[in-house]
């Protein structure tokens, strides 16, 4: 799994990360009701809580959001079907269901919702090909295989679905370049690679990939690093902070973090901070958001820089949480 990074000589000093400002930025997110943007992003509210809470854990401030309110909000998003919406009155979808379960796992409150119903909801979305639909309307995507299986794994109920078929579907999405796409035949994309390697890792099936195809994939991922140190998601595209997670966690799952220049990546991620108001943007000088903030911090944590709490590359949660759930690796 992720190789130790102690051998990397980092040039950036820990004080270049504005921990306090990032904590305050995340705490401020729910007080921005006088901004139009706040209302336009209601469909991401539950994901936003997950991103913010994960970021705070990595910043060693796990209690900076009120626990009771967090739990109440998650409860208010559950549907009788067992699935979760992004907000009360929003329809259920796997993308929100995983966030809900991850939040509860992090604050150790899985018993505060009807998890048996959640298992039924998730299991009901598996299709004969092994893939999962995102919701009752049927969109199929390797992202949903990951969200479904991680949800069930956290709940200790993987056996509720056909895991081998799900793995088979993921393997059918692998391309000659080693990468994975949305569905069989689709082009390789770093986000999709993360979800597919995640599925293979959490089902202990990584060895279904041949050593040659793993090397090919790790080589493709290493090519994502651009001369400025940042990572892009596909060939000939611009770098973006969120790929500091999708690409890096994939390299970690393959045990090849050392195939890129981690020091240069750290410098580039840090350049995307808003030094005044906290938070990270997709690229230097752009507007920050909590999505890019968490994935910037996850990237920094994964290479072992800056005294951040350790992140688990498979689950995108603090290792402290995954250890509590699954025991030490």
């Amino acid at each position, binding site marked *: 799994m992720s190789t130790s990074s102690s051998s990397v000589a980092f040039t950036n000093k820990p004080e270049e990360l504005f921990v306090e400002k990032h904590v305050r930025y995340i705490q401020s997110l729910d007080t921005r009701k006088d901004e139009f943007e706040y209302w336009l992003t209601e469909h991401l509210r539950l994901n936003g809580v997950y991103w913010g809470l994960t970021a705070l854990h990595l910043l060693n401030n796990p209690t900076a959001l009120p626990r009771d309110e967090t739990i109440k909000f998650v409860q208010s998003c559950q549907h009788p079907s067992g699935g979760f919406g992004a907000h009360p009155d929003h329809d259920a979808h796997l993308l929100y269901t995983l966030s809900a379960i991850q939040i509860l796992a992090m604050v150790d409150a899985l018993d505060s919702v009807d998890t048996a119903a959640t298992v039924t909801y998730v299991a009901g979305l598996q299709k004969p090909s092994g893939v999962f639909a995102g919701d009752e309307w049927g969109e199929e995507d390797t992202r949903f295989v990951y969200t479904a299986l991680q949800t069930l794994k956290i709940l200790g109920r993987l056996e509720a679905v056909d895991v081998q078929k799900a793995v088979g579907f993921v393997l059918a999405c692998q391309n000659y370049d080693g990468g994975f796409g949305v569905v069989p035949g689709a082009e390789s994309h770093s986000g999709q690679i993360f979800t597919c390697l995640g599925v293979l890792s959490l089902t202990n099936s990584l060895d279904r990939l041949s050593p040659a195809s793993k090397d090919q994939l790790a*080589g493709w991922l290493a090519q994502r690093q651009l001369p400025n140190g940042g990572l892009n998601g596909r060939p000939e595209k611009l770098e973006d902070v969120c790929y500091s997670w999708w690409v890096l966690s994939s390299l970690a799952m393959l045990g090849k973090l050392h195939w890129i220049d981690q020091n240069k990546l750290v410098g580039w991620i840090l350049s995307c901070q808003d030094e005044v108001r906290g938070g990270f943007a997709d690229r230097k000088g752009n507007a920050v958001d909590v999505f890019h903030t968490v994935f910037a911090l996850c990237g920094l944590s994964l290479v072992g820089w800056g005294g951040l709490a350790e992140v688990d590359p498979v689950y995108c949660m603090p290792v402290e949480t995954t250890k509590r759930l699954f025991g030490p690796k």
Partner: protein
Amino acid sequence: MTSHGVPRASTAPRTAQAIEEDRVKIDAYNALVGEVQGLKASKTYTKASLLSTSSLLEQNPEFNTIWNFRRRIVLHLLTSPEEVAQSEGTEEEKEEKEKEENKLSLLSSELTFLLPLLQKFPKCYWIWNYRLFILQTASEKLSLVTALKLWKAEMGLVNKMLSRDSRNFHGWGYRRYLVQSIEKLQEQQRSEEKEEKSSGKDDDEEESLVEQEFAYTTAMYGKDLSNFSAWHNRSKLIPRMLTERGATLEERITFLDGELGEMQTAVYTDPYDQSIQLYNHWLLLESCSPNSSPSDTSEVFPLATDQKSETLLRTLDWMRELLEEEPECRLLLEEMIFVGGLLRAVGGGDVDDEGVRADMQAWLEKLMEVDPMRGGRWREMKDKL
């Protein structure tokens, strides 16, 4: 909350006027959300509700719950008396025709509604999904001929979207899905026609779109060599196309040589482009992997060992020439190491194994010098050599 490419605002506090302007927008928006959520809760599946969702989705196409509500409205209208014309006393056939026309008009107006939204938000998953839902609904609710027309018209849309952004991930995925669906519907149509005629007459109408799609990838990389999406799609189309052409061994090899020749020109044009390199990689993997054999009919390019080593040696020759002009090109060096590795694995009479190994070692050393970012990878490779 997931903004991309938005410039950072100034750090000055917002003025009272800016806050007030936002408040007015927020109040209007929330009133509309309240109205639509109310209609959704009361299951008011009417044309008026449809219009309310339009206003909201035009402002916020990421609000997926509202798209779902819209789906329910459309499904309801397709079966409800409000939509289906009352035509008592007319012949059954005429009534059926009117029903079909009303359904078509509703579904077509949905497709029209989505056009400006897709152009404004080309990366919004929910809009693309909703568009597919309308087409899938057309397949279920309309006659085969009418549905097929709608699906085929979509090719025009996706051409337009991909000409605006030739790498749009959603556009390429949508295109592949369209092709699959059109082929399926055409096959269905043909089998229905056969049944009707029951004469067993075999018309030669082409069902497969593979040649058309292959030509599209050629046109796309013709405009811009650096289009990984087009090269990727090409690699997925070729195996099927050669099978459908009934290509003989000889024709396959001629085809391969043509593609490899194109690649040589492309790499010479831009040796720093990864998308070309990856496609070249695919061609060589499909043709020159050590374990493949010409007797295996599932092979795309079934070469014998000597043909493989000859192909690889030929490739290395022009790469060596190019390296003299571009001695620091890391992509070229990486590709040469890949070709060298294949060559050693394939073997064959003319291969000087020790010579290739020594070359690879030199290329790796050069790579460590010109590409220190990925030094960890090159060191590992060198250790294994």
